[in-house]
């Protein structure tokens, strides 16, 4: 479980996040949604320690206060974190196998065979068995995302962060990635946080949903309540297109 308490974040004079309070539950897919530029990625980067929150904010991993830890203590927590970046962030000088093996080489005492078995297990889990020798540049966008997921789960993480996992993917591949994230979350009982503005993903896999608007935790709920809420900002976000507005009207008529 990850707890976020009174999290503010400013860059110079510009305050991006305002007093965010939330809990990301274990074994659930926790979605953070909102329009572009509302602070979703900044929130994630604060949670994983890539940005320092402003004074007073706290992030707790399993009850341990991450914000008060020194660099070495944070490094230990980070070894329990897997992260899927928006652009996959695979090491382009390494093969698929080397990418997935990297955290194992850095932080475990596994033998070469054990590491290779783990790599093959992870590749198998994301349906990319036998692609060990490819370089990231030789893989499609969807494959790169799956390799990044394989690398993220290589160390059996307790926490999985996915920053816009579907960006740049076609709808079919996006569903494959969504299902993979959900399956991995349930299978390994990890705390998953997914940052997205893709409503398909939200409805498909979102157990808990947090809506960020103007840098604030504007609304929290689940995939059922998000469709019936009266919150105007949520309505504007979920039913942004004319097509979705029509669907909403027909849903309301049915209810009557």
């Amino acid at each position: 479980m990850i707890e976020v308490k009174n999290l503010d974040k400013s860059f110079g004079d510009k305050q991006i996040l305002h007093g965010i309070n939330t809990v990301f539950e274990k074994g659930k897919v926790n979605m953070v949604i909102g329009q572009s530029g509302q602070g979703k990625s900044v929130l994630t980067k604060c949670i994983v320690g890539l940005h320092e929150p402003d004074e007073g904010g706290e992030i707790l991993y399993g009850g341990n206060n991450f914000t008060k830890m020194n660099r070495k203590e944070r490094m230990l927590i980070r070894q329990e974190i897997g992260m899927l970046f928006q652009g996959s962030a695979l090491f382009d000088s390494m093969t698929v196998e080397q990418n997935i093996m990297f955290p194992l080489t850095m932080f475990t005492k596994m033998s070469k065979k054990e590491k290779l078995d783990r790599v093959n297990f992870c590749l198998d889990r994301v349906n990319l068995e036998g692609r060990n020798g490819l370089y990231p540049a030789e893989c499609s966008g969807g494959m790169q995302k799956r390799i990044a997921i394989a690398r993220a789960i290589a160390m059996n993480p307790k926490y999985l962060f996915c920053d816009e996992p579907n960006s740049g993917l076609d709808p079919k591949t996006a569903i494959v990635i969504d299902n993979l994230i959900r399956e991995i979350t349930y299978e390994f009982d990890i705390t998953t946080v997914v940052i997205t503005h893709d409503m398909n993903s939200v409805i498909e896999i979102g157990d808990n949903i947090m809506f960020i608007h103007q840098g604030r935790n504007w609304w929290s709920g689940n995939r059922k309540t998000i469709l019936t809420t009266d919150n105007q900002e949520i309505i504007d976000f979920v039913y942004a297109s004319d097509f979705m507005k029509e669907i909403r009207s027909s849903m309301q008529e049915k209810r009557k």
Partner: protein
Amino acid sequence: MLKALQNIGKYMHMLWIVFSRPEKWAVFRERLFHEIHFIGINSIPIVALMSVFMGGVIALQTASNMTSPWLPEYTIGYITRSSTILEFSPTMISLILAGKVGSNVASEIGTMKTTEQIDALEVMGVNSLTFLVLPKILGAVFFFPVLIIFSMGLSLIGGWLSLVLSELASTETYVVGIRSFFVPSNIVYALSKTVVFAFLIVSISSYYGYYTKGGALDVGKSATKAVVTASIAILIANFLLTQMFLL
């Protein structure tokens, strides 16, 4: 001025983190050898080419400007050796390497920064500065002196070739010249300078690469800034070290 001071402070802070204990020595050793190959061995062709021509031109210039009959012919070899060892090999070659290695390091790290690969390292719990920059700095500090010794030798060969081919001096007098009044500590001085230059080139380039913000265009800008700043740093350091060692 304030920005320059901020940059220096940030650079010092970066160095403080760079010289932390690596997470795993076996991985560090592997990366060190990789960097020695990438930064050092890959630079041998350009160093060789530059050195041969540099030595050739120094010898030709010296020979063609020696108009006084009072100066013995072996002076050509003597001047070629002295200028090569004291300045041309350590400083000129380091400036060339600032261009080749500096732009390479800055663009490699800059690209990793803009494509979130450095963030990925940090999130995994890897100290990205120690992992990426320390092997580069140590690789350069260990291997640049080898390159400079190699350059000194090739410059002297270049000087000999140019004199023999242009028939401006004989092999015997040239050899006498390069062996005359030899001060071994000059080699130590040259190699000490090289170590400082190697450190400056790689650390400054890494700094510009690591703090790149934006996209591909900004990576290019960082690489340019890295080369310019490293070159200026070499010139200033050369002046200060010459003052310190020779005067």
